[in-house]
């Protein structure tokens, strides 16, 4: 199980970084989504992997429990990354509609006369 979790985190991260480096808005959004999946799985695993254990102490069980804190962290991270993705999509859409282009890098326009500051 460790191998599957570790390699899936690795694959998701690699795919995410590759997509961000494409420098296109849509690819970058997908890349950041993949990265956030990777980090969520990673955070989940930081409390050690355990099968069939509740994240709470139970007086009926035989004492086994898994660390609940990473699960709380993952929940927070999921909520935040969900909100951030929504914002990112809106900003990317706005940038696309303004400039008719979804490239992320900006063309060199630190030139006299070009670029409007206000």
């Amino acid at each position, binding site marked *: 199980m460790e191998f599957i979790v570790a390699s899936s985190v690795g694959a998701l991260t690699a795919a995410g970084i590759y997509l961000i480096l494409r420098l296109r808005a849509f690819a970058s959004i997908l890349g950041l989504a993949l990265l956030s999946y990777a980090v969520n799985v990673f955070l989940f695993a930081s409390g050690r992997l355990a099968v069939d254990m509740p994240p709470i102490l139970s007086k009926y069980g035989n004492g086994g429990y898994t660390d609940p804190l990473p699960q709380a962290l993952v929940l927070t991270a999921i909520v935040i990354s969900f909100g951030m993705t929504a914002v990112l999509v809106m900003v990317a859409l*706005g940038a696309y509609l303004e400039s008719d282009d979804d490239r*992320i890098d900006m063309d060199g326009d630190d030139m006299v006369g070009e*670029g409007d500051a206000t």
Partner: protein
Amino acid sequence: MNHWIIAPVVLPALLAPVIGFVMRHDIVLARTASIFGTVALFAIAIGLFVMSAGDPQAYYLGDWPAPFGIVLVLDRLSAMMVLLTSVLALIVLLYAVATGWDARGRHFHALFQFQLMGIVGAFLTGDIFNLFVFFEILLIASYGLMIHSGGRERMRAGLQYVIINLAGSTLFLFALGVLYATTGTLNIADLAQKLQAYPAEDAALVRVAAMLLMIVFALKAALFPLQFWLPGTYANAPAPVAALFAIMTKVGAYAILRVHTVVFGPGVEATDGLAQTWLFPAAIVTIAVGAIGVLGARRLMPLIAFSVLGSMGTLMAAISAFTPQATTAALYYLIHSTFAAAVLFLVADMVVARRKSDSLAVQAATQQNGLFAALFFAAAIAMAGMPPLSGFLGKLLVLDALRAPEIMAWVWTAILIGSLMTIVGFARAGSQLFWKSVSVVPEEAGPDDPLPEVPPAAGVAEVAPVMVAIGVLATVTVLAGPLTQYLDQTTAQLFDRDGYVSAVLGTAGEE
């Protein structure tokens, strides 16, 4: 338990939704509420500043004992940063209201309050995961402020800014995961305690976490090689927002100061010397990049953005020494450079609004050329580090603190040559904008041409916030003696790891 500690977080958190939902159609009401809220924040910050005189105080949310619950910690450093934020916010807000920037898009005031909540929370928190949450709050508000009032260049610069910060947030979470997996806690005081006893031979993962955290904070502080986002963002953001962002890079600097001094700091065997080794060269290169950018910029806003970059390099060079004397110098320089950057952006905005373009080409002088020239001159000598304003004292303190033989040659060369280049860059920009423009004769309007549109003169309400900020710089200069004494005590408290740990974990009584 002192409940005032959470007040600067709760106040903007409650005010922002009210402004956003209830007052969104009435800009006057929103302005009033926002100014009122920021003044109240300022008052609270002064109160906290007074209260922070003694030992660090912890605020346990929901009364859960540390390290199980989230804690906020008020000590001298965090109180000072909160006060700094509130003063800057008040200046920027008054300027934005006076110039009408806040009415050029929607929800400026709601986003502004959320931004303050995030910044203040990041300064007060005593828990690294909570620091991440407050980072996200200040970032999500800054995304909205960055693209306020829209425009092609601004939207594209905003998109870059959002993406690089989201990648940074992901890295932050990876760092936290590693840290939790190795130490089993995310409370700063608890981490500090556990890592002191951490065996050096098992420390590989801890070192990874320390480096990842440093990369994330360096991204926020715009340290080389992660500085690429800053010129584009600051140059394309609305000027009052760029002025407020002057404190955002300092959040990164503060986080490095807090985490890499208290948790991974000097004397921790597991991560000994790690931060110094990497921060120092990065800071030197950042100074160089900033200085070269100032010389090379052909527009006013990028010029200022690069000068901010250079000042971050100077600040981080001082922080990277991790000695009490250098940290005192860094804190003094931090206060100075925040206001210097804000003043520059606000003055530049007044000029650019009347020139219609921020290119450094010579064109006919605007109204009130003399006033703008004087303000720009004052701001530029502050930023470049010339006497009589506080930049000179700040750089002097930094140079004096960094006299260890192995780094002295690098630091002194970088800071002194960087300052010279910044002076040249600002002198060139100032003479193009204000001096040569006087000799330009405006073209005679033909009989058929429409009358040229004359922008209104800058009123008292616009100039006053800038004057106040320059006044703060002057005060910081005049009161440099008492201020550095205060900062000395702040630094002593920051380096007193045991005092911090016992105050937060409540073990003070047992010793």
